[in-house]
């Protein structure tokens, strides 16, 4: 399987899921989490991750806040909002529906 960053529209789902398990992550940590938790298969590119984060922030699914870390560096961290939790449920069930449908097709053929 080639290393892919084509997340097929599932980037929102992954970000929301990651933030629901581990709240208050900054962009780099989310990027790392996508890579690690997918066993190095999936990759979120910076070029699409940040616009996605900002879009979801505007949509009210996640909210951001600036913090100063122990190292003295400032970072912008994200966490889920109640609306984001609901959106996660929606996206998850949609993903399930899509994958099971695709699986059914694969089995039939």
């Amino acid at each position: 399987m080639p290393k892919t960053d084509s997340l097929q529209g599932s980037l929102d789902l992954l970000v929301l899921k990651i933030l629901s398990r581990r709240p208050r992550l900054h962009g780099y940590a989310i990027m790392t989490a996508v890579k690690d938790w997918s066993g190095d298969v999936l990759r979120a590119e910076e070029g699409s991750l940040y616009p996605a984060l900002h879009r979801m922030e505007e949509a009210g699914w996640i909210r951001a806040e600036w913090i100063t870390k122990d190292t003295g560096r400032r970072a912008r961290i994200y966490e889920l909002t109640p609306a984001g939790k609901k959106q996660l449920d929606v996206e998850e069930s949609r993903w399930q529906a899509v994958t099971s449908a695709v699986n059914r097709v694969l089995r039939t053929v």
Partner: protein
Amino acid sequence: MSLWSRIVNVARGDRLSREIDEEAQSHIEEAVAQGRDSAEARRAFGSALRHREESRDVRLIAWLDSLRADAIFGWRQLMKRKATSAAAILSLALAIGACTGAFRLIDALLLRPLPVADAQHLYVLSRKGIDFDGKPATVDGWAYPAFQLMRAAVKNQADLLAVSYAQRMDLTYKSDAEMEKASVQYVSGWMFGTLGLRPTLGRLLTENDDLKPHAHPYAVLSYDYWTRRFDRDPEVVGRTFRMGDDLYQIVGVGPEPFTGTETGIVTDVFAPTMMHPGAVHDDWTWHRTLARLKPSAAVEPTRARLDATSRAFEEERAKGFTGMSKQDIEKFLDQTLVLEPAAAGASDLQSNYRVSLVALGVLVAMVLLIACANVANLMTAQASSRAREMALRVSIGAGRLRLVQLVLVESAIVAFVSGALGGLFAWWSAPFVVGMINPADNPARLFLPADWRVLGFGLALTLGVMLLFGLAPALRASAVKPATALKGGEDPHTRRRMMHALIAAQVAFCFLVLFVAGLFSATFERLSNRPTGFVANRLLILDTTAQRAESPVFWDQVAEHLRGIPGVQSVALAGWPLLGGGGWNGFVSVNGAPPGPVLAYFLAVSPGWVDTMKIPFTFIDGSDFLPSDTFPGAAIINETFAKQFFNGENPIGQTIAKGGAPCKVVGVVRDAPYRSMREPILPSAYVPFHSIDSKGALQPVRDATFMVRTSSVNPMALASILRREVPRARPEFRVSNIRTQAELVRGQTLRERLLAMLGVFFAGVALLLAGIGLYGMLDYSVLQRRREIGIRLAIGAPAGSIARLVTMEVFTMVLVGALAGVALGMASVRYIETLLYQVKAGDPAMLALPSLTILAAALLAALPAVIQAVRIDPVAMLRAD
């Protein structure tokens, strides 16, 4: 929420960019901290700029952001040239404000529907025919018996309402010593129900309050009067007031927005028509008739039915006419009833000022167009000086639409700032103009609400103006060709052609405004300089009323008493003052012959009236009345009367008779206007104030007027003394109103004064704007052609030829514009003919004046540019480029 935060983010775009950059920075630092190579991390992150743009577009509304950027840029452009921007904005503000103000007036007087149910189904009935002077005339007055017949005839098609002309009347809530004036209207009791009005307090009048003559002394107050006079006292219902001989009871207060159906007058008190003394007379026309058509009814059949009923009524009445030839009776009967829409009410103010207001509206629209042309030229000139900037923008990839937006936004700033200032001007100016319509004792009251109608108009006007002056320069700027523009200029002539066309249009509009303003001023001047035949200065008019009709002997006693007051030169009695609106006419027979077809006008006056008015006698053997003279018995006639009825013979000693009342002519006096300054002098006869009936008994008089000539220049100084002295002479007499004759004369030219004043003001503005426009245009063209001029001067062109070169084209345009203006003026003058007095549009003086003024202004405007052109130093010029 999200949309809002995106809008908010537009306002803090810089902070947003900083935040995005900082996050990117922190991302890379984090990557480095995790042990990655800094350069590699940066490469992986990609272009920071692209990243910023993408994130920005997500977090704010892109078009709003670009609009904001353009607005800031446009504002800076405007601030860079403060003087020209301020001139543009001020001229536009004045024009927009004037247009909005004119719209407010036109809307309030002519367009705004009355606050009643189904106003659009209201019509007013009038009769079109030929009046006794042989001129076409429309009369909207009706006799009550005719109204009753018509109401019955169309009861299935329409509800007919009788509404009297609003009158300023004397009434009192306490004693007679505390009489006050109120505007009273007699209305059909069922009017309130038909118009769907609900009481604020108590009840409104109904059909049951309007059944029998003189049997229903009930009144409804208007909300406005209740507020002004009673401070909204809820106890007002049940109170009584005396008006004339009747004690009225207040039964209720009308709804707030309703001020009567006579737009321009706010009615205070509504009383039932049956309480009007004219309700039983078939020859008193004292009320308007409104019709509210039922939804199922068509206009024309209803009109025809009303017409037939009215004609039948008049034919019946004409059978009783004596002393009129058959021909005259036929002429009198030949009238057509017309139904005109009255959704906005029906009033004299409307008919008097309709044409004037529309004419004013057109004038200010012309001024607005001139101002727009100015700003358009300014914008075009500016756009061409920015051609390089535009070319650069196109070269680095700006879209045409983006450039149109850039220039339009600048126009929008100008338009909206002007619109806001103009709104202020309109807010002030419309009531100011209404305040000028203030005939003595009865100023117009017009409600001028600033609601969505006015606001919408102002907004639409501002937007329209913006497109008018902004769109062409914007399109032109966006059509820039980078290659030519960056090379050093395109063909300058294409740009100037449009500017030239605008100059011609400006001159044409300016000519029209000047021309019409000239007509208005000449009308005012001729009308106010028309000889009155009497001396109005120092003349005080005391409209006086007695509790009941009193013998003229008592009236004489009061006059005698007044003569003894210091400061009073002479006192005389009259039925009413000249030019006061009163009238009494009839057909006259001379020396017992049958009466002729010409109406003569009569006025009862006491001995000494002619002297007090200072109207000179024209025949040496003529004389004033003797105290013993009576009507019938003696008469003094004016010159027009003598000419009309005696063909140059000496009328002294001959006999004239009005409807069987013979009078011997004892004197002839100089002509004086009777009703109006506008109409030709009417044949008038003055008859003795002492009137006798067929048995020779003196007739008592209830209302009359004392004419008092004072020795002081300001007759009003005596007003309060005289008001006090009249009841002192006889307690049953009371002064109801004090005016000066000069006020009445001035009142005759109120509309003309207003039109002349506003006309001259806007002519001045138009001339100034057109002059500025011309100056700007010439200045620009010299600037653009300075290289060419430099070369011409270098090879020896004389100053004269340079001046010609610079001004030739523009002056051709001025000429073309002036000719177009003449054509426009000649074409439009017939619409305002009714406003003019003894002024002909084709009068060479009327055409020459605006032409010369414009020419002078054009020369003045051209001078600086010509001087500048001639002074160009070829050496400096050619070296600079």
